[in-house]
């Protein structure tokens, strides 16, 4: 459905993307996550042919992104926080304008989405709040039942109530569609994404199914009979290793129930107890981001 192959993008001397590759399978809810400036929006702009890659290529609905035509765009819904709609038109006028461009526009669905998102028909787009504009963008992206929905930072700047309304509107219509969502609002993605790709400084750190990711990450606490010490050579799979009293805590990135005990003992010797806890996406992201930042600092040093 979506494939990025060795994408590079330079803005002057700044490299926004550095050989990014990933692929989002059909029917997935694929989350692109990363800190601000990681390259998520640049990637999406390239996928939508709003930007051209400096090198590499991207495919969307089986077509080179540079050759994206109205034929493909009729199947793609796009919602972005950086989306300029005609501010002088009212909500109703703009929907009236868009309707004829889509052969499969469903007026009943449009009415239902508008009701659900509580969009005032007579209000000018320029007079809408940021949250209302995001809902407006979603209302313009759903009624033609796209097979691919691309959401670029859709939750940015939304208050919790609007976020909930937005997500409800989205989830009710999601059905079979493939969703690509870029965000750093990980709490919202957690229950939605089926796949995740983590981008840092224009590079892909990993890409995998959400179930695999949450399955292999654990917050681990090892309790000793003696005061704990940070091992001089901690395994590479352990992130954010720290000692607190008799407890050594870290994030295990290759967790399996069967061999955790043995791996811990071989690294730190005898232990009294090992406790593990599943991690939410936010914690995984934080651990990975911190680790990436530390590694970059070490490289610079």
């Amino acid at each position, binding site marked *: 459905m979506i494939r990025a192959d060795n994408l590079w993008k330079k803005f002057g001397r700044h490299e926004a993307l550095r050989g990014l590759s990933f692929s989002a399978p059909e029917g997935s809810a694929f989350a692109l996550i990363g800190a601000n400036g990681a390259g998520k929006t640049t990637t999406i702009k390239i996928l939508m*042919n*709003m930007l051209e890659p400096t090198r590499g290529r991207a495919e969307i609905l089986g077509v080179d992104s540079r050759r994206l035509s*109205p034929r493909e*765009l009729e199947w*793609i819904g*796009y919602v972005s926080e950086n*989306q300029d709609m005609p501010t002088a*038109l009212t909500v109703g006028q703009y929907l009236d304008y868009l309707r*004829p*461009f889509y052969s499969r526009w469903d007026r009943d669905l449009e009415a239902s989405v508008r009701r659900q998102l509580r969009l005032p028909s007579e209000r000018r787009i320029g007079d809408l709040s940021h949250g209302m504009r995001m809902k407006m963008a979603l209302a313009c992206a759903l009624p033609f039942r796209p097979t691919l929905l691309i959401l670029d930072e859709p939750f940015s700047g939304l208050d919790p109530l609007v976020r909930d309304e937005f997500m409800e509107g989205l989830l009710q219509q999601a059905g079979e569609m493939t969703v690509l969502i870029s965000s750093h609002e990980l709490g919202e993605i957690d229950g939605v994404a089926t796949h995740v790709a983590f981008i840092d400084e224009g590079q892909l750190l990993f890409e995998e199914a959400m179930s695999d990711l949450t399955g292999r990450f654990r917050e681990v606490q090892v309790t000793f009979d003696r005061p704990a010490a940070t091992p001089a050579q901690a395994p590479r799979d352990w992130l954010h290793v720290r000692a607190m009293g008799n407890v050594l805590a870290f994030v295990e990135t290759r967790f399996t129930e069967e061999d955790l005990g043995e791996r811990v003992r071989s690294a730190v010797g005898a232990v009294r107890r090992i406790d593990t806890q599943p991690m939410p996406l936010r914690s995984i992201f934080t651990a990975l981001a911190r680790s990436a930042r530390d590694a970059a600092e070490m490289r610079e040093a």
Partner: protein
Amino acid sequence: MVWHIFKKDLGLMWRMALAVALVDFALAAILIKLAHFGSSPALRSLLDPIRFVGIFGTAVLIVAAVQQDAIPGMRQDWLARPIKRTDLLLSKMLFVAIMARGPIFLGDLVEGLAFGFSIESSLAAATSRNLWMFLAFDLPLLAFGTLTRNLTEAVVGGLAIMLSASSVIAMLNELYRGARWQETLRTGMAWVTQSITILVVLLATMIVLAFQYYRRKTMPARWTTGAASLLFVASLSMPWRPVFAVQQRFSQNPAVARSVTLAFEPGMGRFRDPSGLRRSDRNESEMIVPLPLRFSGLPDNVVLKADHSTVRLISVDGRAEDFTTVNDLEIRKDGSADGLVRDYHSIRFVAEDYNRIKDQRVRIEIDYSFTLLTLASSHGIPAVHGEQRTGDLGWCKTRFNSARTAVQLLCLAPGKMRNCATAFLEHAASGRRNPELSNCSPDYSPYWGQLQMDAVTRFGFGLPFRDPAGLARYPIDGSKIGESQIVVRLYKPQDHFTRRIMIPEIRLSDWVAGN
């Protein structure tokens, strides 16, 4: 979807479009009100400001229409919509044609009809002018609009282009001191240069539109605009020879001037003003040297116009120096003249150049590019309160000037007018005539219509019959003016040809006008 996008733009911009249309209609109304001799100073003073506001408003409307779906940037919603680029481009062109050009076309049409011209000629004049304006003004502006995101960018960009072009033109003017630079533009052959500049502009417009609507490559499109602006300025300085060669191919009757010859005629002596007054030829910047010439082989009832001449001064040691002049020699021969015509070619020199060479003995070679115009029609109109409509002059009226020292003739005609004419006052009963005046700034273009400010052209003469100082006496004076008529003769170009004359060694100072 072209019409659908057009309707969206109309919904967003109808107020601006209406305001600009009102300005266009106001301009047409003023032109209609002024007609021939409309003398309201208030209306006359409004004409230029309203014209400027109309042009500026049209430009803003065109750019704003394009910017409703701006091309540069990556935030515009339309980029993610299944909108065909061709539809978008055509919708913008349609908007420009209907909302920006339409009211001007309508104003032009109403103006022609209000002056009593036929629907066909009014329609033809309005169509021709507005088609030219659409190609040479509207489309380039539309292309320029695609390079910008908002009006601030457009104004800054427009000013930058204009300032750069003006600087280059000023630099070239300084470099050439007005000699060869833009020389073709001051002649009837300006259409050749203008056609090339319009082609440059249209080509650049197409490239920019293709870059923007089909590739969204704003930087290359901006570079194209910059390069085209330079090429535009460069194309204004088309050299004379190729332009004249093109014009010669359009000669209506290439054989008619075959027998025309000219020669230096020193026997005529220095030029002396017939009035006996010492003419003040000398001013701070230039000096005029009238050289006596003899023309033979001219057919009857013709105007011979030197569109361009290159004067080469060759000193005794063989050094040559060229001076170029345009439109400074016009010979008329009517049916009553004998075979020869003698006249002076007043050559203008920059004072600095003249002072440097005036006392040197020099040989002179002059290369002339001539146009021979033959009489096309002749019309007589009562000198006082006359009014006449003719096919080729249009609608003409006469009246006294405010000091009652001259009779004014003004003709309005739809579209392109033949603009080489002579006129004189004639007393029908006695056959007396006042001196003939010429108004000959022809346009030799073979095109239907031309790029002009107004669909109705104005053309006229002021024919004096009384000298307020009392120094000159006219054969037809105030006492006979009531029984006189103005005879207007229209000439049309027949042949474009070159001649060279060689003048043996002379000193320029020997030929400056005497008293």
